[in-house]
């Protein structure tokens, strides 16, 4: 079972949650309050949902060997546009207004994704720079939309997206689950996953087998932008306001971290959606842990650094092999390091 690639991320998540239990005895308690589920675990899922979505889009981008730095700006733009539309509408609480606002946000995200995709796949700009452009400019666009202010909206249907509940479960969580399942279905039940992994694993060879790499690459940037937009709607809906300045700030780093912690390599190729979901939850659980056990803000980063590096060491086969060898062969003379065993025959 330890061979399964989700094993170690799952262990890490479990350990983090258990650590909380030591500080807050009723950490695992889930109650029904006002007709909806209430508890720390629910919070982790609830606040983790946007990150899961952003990381999901990022996973596919990374699978093709790219990276998308612009997701944070897309998060901000989506929230800003939706809230602007609602705040200017005659009837902010009508479902029609909300649907229109969501449609506007998604449509603009689509355009942004296409822009990234064209820059990367057609013009041939390195992904990090192509998306950096939108990362910088997009934040400006979000501020332009909000006029640098926080747009507060009061709209029941809009609030549902990120802050509401459905069947006692946070709607955002359900939404995230649905998107994850759809993505899994889309990549694993069709050949999309295989083709993406192929493009990321060896672009030259992929071209020669007749895969239309540029189309696929553009597609993943669009997908990433859409995921980010939905996440942006969730975030803004959760606080019923749009903050063009701060919404989604640095979320790209968290998302990339989630993807990598989940076992997908930044060099492209194989990806694991399950790993990404676990990775995102690990990151969210880590934040919650920091709040609950009361790590002072000035040492938060030091704590985070240690957790991240421990997580990675635990996941590293090389580290585990070494740790095991050290223990088992204290008497035997030290052996030289095995050199990248599984990569050696290429």
């Amino acid at each position, binding site marked *: 079972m330890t061979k399964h690639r989700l094993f170690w991320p799952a262990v890490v998540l479990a350990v983090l949650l258990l650590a909380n239990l030591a500080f807050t005895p009723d950490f695992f308690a889930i109650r029904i309050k006002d007709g909806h589920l209430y508890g720390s675990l629910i919070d982790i899922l609830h606040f983790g949902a946007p990150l899961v979505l952003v990381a999901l889009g990022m996973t596919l981008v990374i699978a093709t060997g790219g990276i998308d730095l612009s997701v944070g700006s897309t998060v901000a733009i989506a929230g800003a546009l939706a809230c602007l539309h609602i705040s200017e509408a005659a009837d902010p609480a009508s479902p029609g207004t909300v649907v229109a606002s969501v449609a506007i946000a998604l449509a603009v995200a689509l355009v942004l994704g296409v822009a990234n995709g064209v820059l990367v796949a057609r013009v041939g700009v390195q992904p990090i720079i192509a998306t950096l452009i939108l990362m910088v400019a997009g934040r400006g666009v979000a501020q332009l939309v909000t006029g640098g202010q926080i747009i507060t909206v009061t709209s029941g249907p809009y609030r549902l997206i990120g802050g509401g509940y459905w069947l006692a479960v946070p709607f955002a969580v359900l939404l995230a689950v649905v998107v994850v399942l759809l993505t899994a279905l889309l990549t694993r*039940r*069709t*050949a*999309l996953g*295989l*083709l993406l*992994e*192929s493009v990321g*694993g*060896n672009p*030259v*060879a*992929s*071209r*020669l*087998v*007749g*895969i*239309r790499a540029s189309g*696929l690459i553009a597609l993943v940037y669009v997908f990433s932008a859409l995921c980010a937009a939905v996440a942006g709607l969730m975030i803004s809906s959760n606080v019923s306001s749009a903050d063009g300045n701060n919404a989604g700030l640095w979320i790209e780093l968290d998302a990339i971290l989630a993807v990598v912690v989940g076992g997908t390599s930044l060099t492209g*190729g*194989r990806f694991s959606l399950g790993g990404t979901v676990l990775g995102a939850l690990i990151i969210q659980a880590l934040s919650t842990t920091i709040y609950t056990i009361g790590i002072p803000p000035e040492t938060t980063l030091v704590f985070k650094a240690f957790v991240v590096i421990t997580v990675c060491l635990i996941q590293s086969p090389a580290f585990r092999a070494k740790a095991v060898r050290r223990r088992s062969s204290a008497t035997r003379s030290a*052996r*030289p*390091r*095995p*050199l990248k*065993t*599984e*990569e*050696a*025959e*290429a």
Partner: protein
Amino acid sequence: MPAQSAQQPVLEVRGIRKEFPGVVALDGVDFRLFPGEVHALMGENGAGKSTLIKVLTGVHPSDGGEVVLDGRPVRIAGPLQAQLAGISTVYQEVNLCPNLSVAENILIGREPRRFGLVHWSELRRRAAESVADLDLDIDVSAPLDSYSTAVQQLVAIVRAVEVSAKVLILDEPTSSLDREEVRQLFAVMRRLRDQGVAILFVSHFLDQVYEICDRMTVLLGGRLEGEYLTGELRQVDLVARMIGGEPSDPGEPSDSARREPAEGADAPPFLRADGLARSGAIEPYDLTIRSGEVVGLAGLLGSGRTEAARLLFGADHSTRGSVRIEGAEVSLRTPRTAISHGIAFCPEDRKTEGLIGELTVRENIVLALQAARGWTRPLSGTRQDEIALHWIRALGIRPGNPEALVRNLSGGNQQKVLLARWLITDPKLLILDEPTRGIDVGAKAEIQKLVADLAGDGMSVLFISAELEEVLRLCHRVGVLRDRRLVAELPNDGSLTPESIMATIASGAQS
């Protein structure tokens, strides 16, 4: 031949064992190498030859056994240590840095220096010298990736020879070289041998082995089968030992695997290229390929065979000329369009242009078929397994696990996977660029038969190989290239021999 029994082996391994997850690649192998000999390491694809070499040079740590160098047990921790201990190696795949110049690839790690800085002019001079030593003519200051696989293979050899080590290990150095280069290489090997260097040589070309080697060690499924003097083992017996069976009829198939095209010589051409060219790569050429016909391309290293083929597949853009498929003019702008016209292309460089190392055997096999169907029409899991298992069996891919990662397969088995990928797409024109590189004798015959059968069923084949015998065995017609120009088209009517092709290449005669 030096009298080895009196001598101490320069390199000896005893009871070497190497396990990979799920595979025992080497199981108690003994092996010795004497100074001043050329020693062949023989075995089927996946027998463990490359693994033995990698364990010897410290790329993989061994799981048991010992390595003795000059009479002393040693632990070689990595290629660097191996080099320092006097073992110089050319690994099976080209392992050079494509982004560096040829000169740097030859000398990196040993660059001549002046005042602690790299002495560039000296570096280029020395590299050019070593290249000239092998009678090659390459611009050493050009980046390595501007050269074809074959040239890169030669550069790797130059690098290894340049070290002047005690032990020289060559893992399938000749897999894509042609006669002239092989001759040059052998001359160098003989010279080194006479200087007392011990040379370990791996090749699937039995003739080459018999030509150059003094002794051989045969591996069978990761175990030692035996050690023989070349003079005392007939080829048929060797083949039998390699496959672990009884000596039978010569492993060579009948002289010709070729069948007559069903529709005869006047059948309409499937593909016709008129004055197709790409400036700087290949001069304008005309070529027609009929259905059911196997057309070979012969030529020396860098003569432009690959370049000519790539234009037909849309892998490179042609700068002039036109292509007609079944009479209609088409523009082959990308591989995708070529594929949609029923063309398949199996590239020569499996590592960089062919396989996706991180994916499994199954995924690599179905990839081209899946790409042609588009992502919305996936092949079902069971269908994929069916296809993969069928071809694993048909081509003898080992290990036979469709879920093994391709990068963990032995070189020859990887080549088979690549071939299987294109065979299942059922194309109308199959372009094979060095399809049998690194494939063992038995499987090679199988593959040749398969190609002949497919052609018999009406498929057109463009067949490129450095091995002229193979070209002659399979092809109905042979196009001869020289200096990136198609200089002749010879019908293979029985009178054609490797020598006559060589003569055509040399004279550059127009047909």
